[in-house]
Each structure stands twice: as C-alpha cells, then as structure tokens.
C-alpha cells in the first residue's frame, strides 16, 4: 500500500516537487530561527551564565566606554564567596549589532586556561603564553574568517599572530579572540595601561551569586570608579537587549513558516484527494477500510512534509555547522549552532504539520458515500 502512496506522489511529480520545495524552504528558515532562539537561550542560561559575575563600570554599555582599574581584581578577590577574578580588556570592531562581529578579550593566558571553558583544537598554548602578540581564536570565527594557526590577523589597529584555535562547550565562546591583557591595553590609542573593561568573577560553589554581586558594588563604591555587577547571563542579556527584542520577534517568523508549510501541504493534499475521490471509492469497494483510506491520505501528506522538512532542516544544520554564524553587539555574541534537538524538533514539527494538513481530506475519504463517489464518474 505504501507503494501506492509513493507512486501517486511520483505520478504528480511537479505538484509533489513544488510542495516539497516549499516545505523545505520554510523548514530551513524555521531551523535558522530556532537556532537563533537556542543561541539566545544558551547565552542566558547554564553554569557559565549563572555562576559567574561580570563587574562593569556603572551606567556604561559599550566595552570601549567601561574603564575599571585593573587592581580592582585584588579587592574583589578578598570578598567572601569569590573564588577567582579575571580582569579582561575587551575590544570589538563594532559596537552596534552586527553579523560579523570580532571581539578580542585580553587577559592573562594562565588564567584564561584555568577559568574559561576553552580547549585547544590546534596550535600550541605555550606559544600563546610566550609570544607577546599571540592569540588563540574560537573555532567559529576561524571558520567565518578562514583563519588557521600561523596566520597573521589584522583588524583596525590590532594585529595578532594566531597561535591556536580552540573549541568550547559554550558556543558564544567560540566567537572570541583571546590575547594577552597587556598587548590589548597597549594597542589602544587612548591610554589603557592599568585599566580593563571588566572583571569576570568565578564564585565559590556555595556562594549566593546575587549577594556577592551586591557586595562587590558596595565595596567598590568608595573607590575611584563605581561598578555594576551582574550575573554573566543577565549581563549578556542586557547588553544584547535590542537584539533580544528582535530575536523574540523572530520567533513569530518561525510560526509563520509552520503556517506556510501547513497551508501549502494542505492545499496540495486536498486538491490531490478531491481529484481522486473516485479512486478511493474503488479502493473501498475492493475492501480497503475507511480507516485505511484515511491512513493512505495521511501517509501522502506526512511524506510530503517529512521529505520537505528533512531536506530543509538538513541544509539548515549543514549551513549552521559550517557557516560559523553569529550575531553580536557591544562585545557579546550569540552563536548559531546546529543541534540534535533542532533537527529533531523540526522533523517533529514537519510530522505534526503533515498530520494536521492531511486530516481534513483524510476524514473526507473515510466518510464519503462510496456509491455517490462512484457515480460521479
């Protein structure tokens, strides 16, 4: 019987092909939108987002405007609940929202290794530690910019030699370029020596993140520059707040894609079934049960959706895997990554859409009057 479904779809080649293509395009977009949502969710959740604090200058937004004394690290380190502090100088080529954002983080190589969730995929860490203008770069930006170990990478006033490419379980990390703190401080026009953009605070396992954050701001209020300390997730969400609104809006685009597939496949199936009511009447006369023809129609619409959805999500996942896409603003980035869940959810969505699209005509065949359908020859 599956043979019959397949042959029916193949017989109406053009119609099936157009429907599958339409479904594929829509599910492709659905997948991309989904990966953006996932990226945003990852950025603001998980251990990296929840158990780390970012100390930033109060009322400042873009990394170039936040200037904190480097020695704040010593004061912060003494506060109860703080395990370690990483002073970071941030430099970005673009403070506005951009799809090709380049973000440098300057910090002590030893501390980067111990505090950041990075793992070298190629190159050498010791070369990074010993060479003044060396950098290790995330896999994503390496892919996007076509960079590899040994390359010289120049952007603006900054020129670094790539000592390694790293990967990370935190996808947004893979968009970063790490350099020595002193190197990044010195390469900037306005005097930055002794100043950093932010301090990243690693908490003791038992520490209450919000309490420690308040304590840091209170302690530093008396010093030269006032600070604002937040959990890393909250910090990134507020940094990207404009984008967060946009991304929140984009999920409607995802629903629109589902609606598109639904109406496309529903139209095709209804047309195809109404052309063939007599054929279904013949099948029922032969002895196919009403539920049997219902299943045949559903199989048709589900097959169209699954093939379209499979192609669309397949292309989307490949594009996400090898495109190294990321969107960023003010030094924070959202990485678009493929994931198993994304693939499964878009296939699941295709399946559901196929069932819903096929149900009305399927029920129509199950409830038709065989005699009347045979008479309308």
């Amino acid at each position, binding site marked *: 019987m599956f043979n*019959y479904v397949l042959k029916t779809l*193949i017989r109406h080649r053009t119609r099936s092909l157009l429907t599958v293509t339409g479904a594929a395009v829509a599910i492709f977009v659905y997948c991309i939108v989904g990966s953006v949502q996932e990226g945003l969710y990852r950025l603001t959740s998980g251990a990296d987002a929840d158990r780390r604090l970012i100390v930033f200058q109060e009322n400042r937004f873009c990394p170039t405007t936040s200037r904190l004394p480097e020695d704040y690290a010593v004061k912060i380190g003494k506060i109860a609940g703080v395990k370690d502090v990483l002073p970071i100088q941030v430099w970005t080529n673009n403070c506005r929202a951009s799809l090709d954002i380049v973000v440098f983080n300057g910090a002590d190589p030893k501390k980067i290794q111990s505090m950041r969730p990075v793992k070298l995929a190629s190159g050498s860490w010791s070369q990074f530690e010993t060479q003044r203008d060396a950098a290790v770069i995330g896999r994503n930006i390496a892919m996007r910019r076509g960079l590899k170990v040994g390359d010289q990478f120049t952007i603006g006033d900054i020129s670094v030699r790539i000592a390694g490419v790293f990967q990370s379980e935190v996808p947004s990390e893979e968009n970063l370029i790490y350099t020595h703190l002193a190197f990044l401080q010195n390469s900037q026009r306005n005097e930055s020596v002794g100043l950093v953009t932010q301090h990243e605070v690693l908490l003791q396992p038992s520490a209450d993140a919000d309490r420690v954050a308040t304590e840091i701001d209170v302690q530093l209020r008396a010093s030269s520059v006032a600070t604002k300390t937040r959990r890393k997730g909250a910090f990134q969400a507020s940094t990207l707040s404009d984008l967060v609104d946009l991304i929140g809006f984009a999920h409607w685009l995802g629903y629109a894609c589902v609606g598109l597939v639904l109406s496309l496949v529903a139209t095709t199936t209804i047309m195809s079934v109404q052309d063939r009511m007599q054929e279904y009447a013949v099948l029922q006369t032969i*002895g196919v049960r009403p539920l049997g023809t219902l299943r045949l129609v559903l199989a048709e619409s589900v097959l169209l959706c699954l093939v379209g959805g499979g192609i669309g999500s397949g292309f989307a996942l490949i594009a996400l895997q090898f495109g190294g896409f990321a969107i960023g603003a003010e030094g924070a980035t959202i990485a678009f990554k493929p994931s198993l869940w994304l693939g499964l959810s878009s296939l699941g969505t295709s399946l559901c859409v196929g069932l819903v699209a096929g149900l009305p005509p399927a029920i129509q065949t199950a409830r038709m009057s065989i005699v009347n359908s045979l008479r309308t020859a």
Partner: protein
Amino acid sequence: MNILELRNVTKSFRKGDETITPLHNVDLDVRQGEFVSLMGPSGSGKSTLLNVVSGIDHVDSGVIRVNSQEITSLSRGQLADWRAANLGYIFQTHNLVPVLTAYENVELPTLLLKLSAGERRARVELALEAVGLSDRAGHYPRQLSGGQEQRVGIARAIVSHPTVVVADEPTGSLDAETSLQVQSLLKRLNQELNITLLMVTHDAHVATIATRQLYLDRGKLVEELRVERQ
C-alpha cells in the same frame, strides 16, 4: 444451498419532494455457481441492487445474506473486511488505479488478505492468466486498450477467490468485438472456475450468456428464464 439470499429488501431515495423506490420488498435466491443477469429499464434500480448486495450501499429494510452471513447488520469497517474476503466487483469503466501496473492493480485486493508473498504472487499470476493478460502484467492502464483494461478489472475481481462476483454493465463501454471477448471470458470463468456471478446489462444478447435472466421493473424482480446447467 443458496449462496446469496435477499429477503424483503427495500431501498428508496428522496429527491426533493418525491420518493423513488427502486427496490420494493425484493426477494432473491442465488445458488453457488449460478450466473445471473439482471436487465431492466434505465433508472429501474439495477445498480442499486448490486450496490446493496456488495455492501457499498445500505438497505432501508430487509435482510441480505451471503453464505449465511447477514451482511445487512455489519458496520462500515466490517463490510470493508467482508468485501475484501468475499466480494469481487467489476465496474463499467474507470476502475483501475492509474498509477499502478496491471499486476499491481490485480495484487491490490490480495494485500488486504493474510497471504504469504508466494501465495500472493501465485494468485495474481493465475488471475492474469485466466484473463489472458500475463504478458501485459507490467503495463499501466493508459498503455492498455479498453478491453484489456476491463479484463484486468475482471482479474482483480476474482483474484481473492470471492464468494460472489458482481458486474455492473461490464461490456457497457466496449465495442462489439471486445464486448464479445469479455462475454466469453465471463462465461468461461463461470463454467470453469464455478464462480457465482451477478451481472447487470442493458443488452439482451449479453444477458443470454447467463444461466438465469432476471428483469427488474418498478421495484419488483421478475424471473425471465432459467437454464439448468448440466
């Protein structure tokens, strides 16, 4: 023994204000191996009679028994299963599934029965051989002539070894020569395979191939002729 029994079968249709009653308290007994032809004016209810016997239409009152099983009390799903196992239906036209080959069309009913792959193939091949189309098994309906198409339809109707085969004007849309071929085929199937046949026709000549001729008029069935076969 009667293979088919109709008792007090009544069926009427409403068309606006008027009610048409093509079957009015119809009784009929058909024995195993009989070939019954059914004639009557257009609109007299011949197709309606075939349809209620096939269980694709329901009666208003009365009982139909096939092989002692009362089909008038079966549900829609049960009727479908019953048809798969017990009924062959030969249509006038447009009866083959266009996307399937002759072989696949004949195979369709066997897919609804519990058969092994080997048994299935044997039955399909036998049915195609019986209608003389073994060499056209791989052809699609559009590649067959009208007469060949009808023969594939006949093979499909007999492939599951049904209790009763009904045919609604099986030669109605064929030219004289192909009509003769199909007639002799039906006659052969009845004589050689002892298949019980109930055939509607407009053509008095065609009716003569049957062993028994019935006439339906104004809701009543009249026996015209009965030839006892040796």
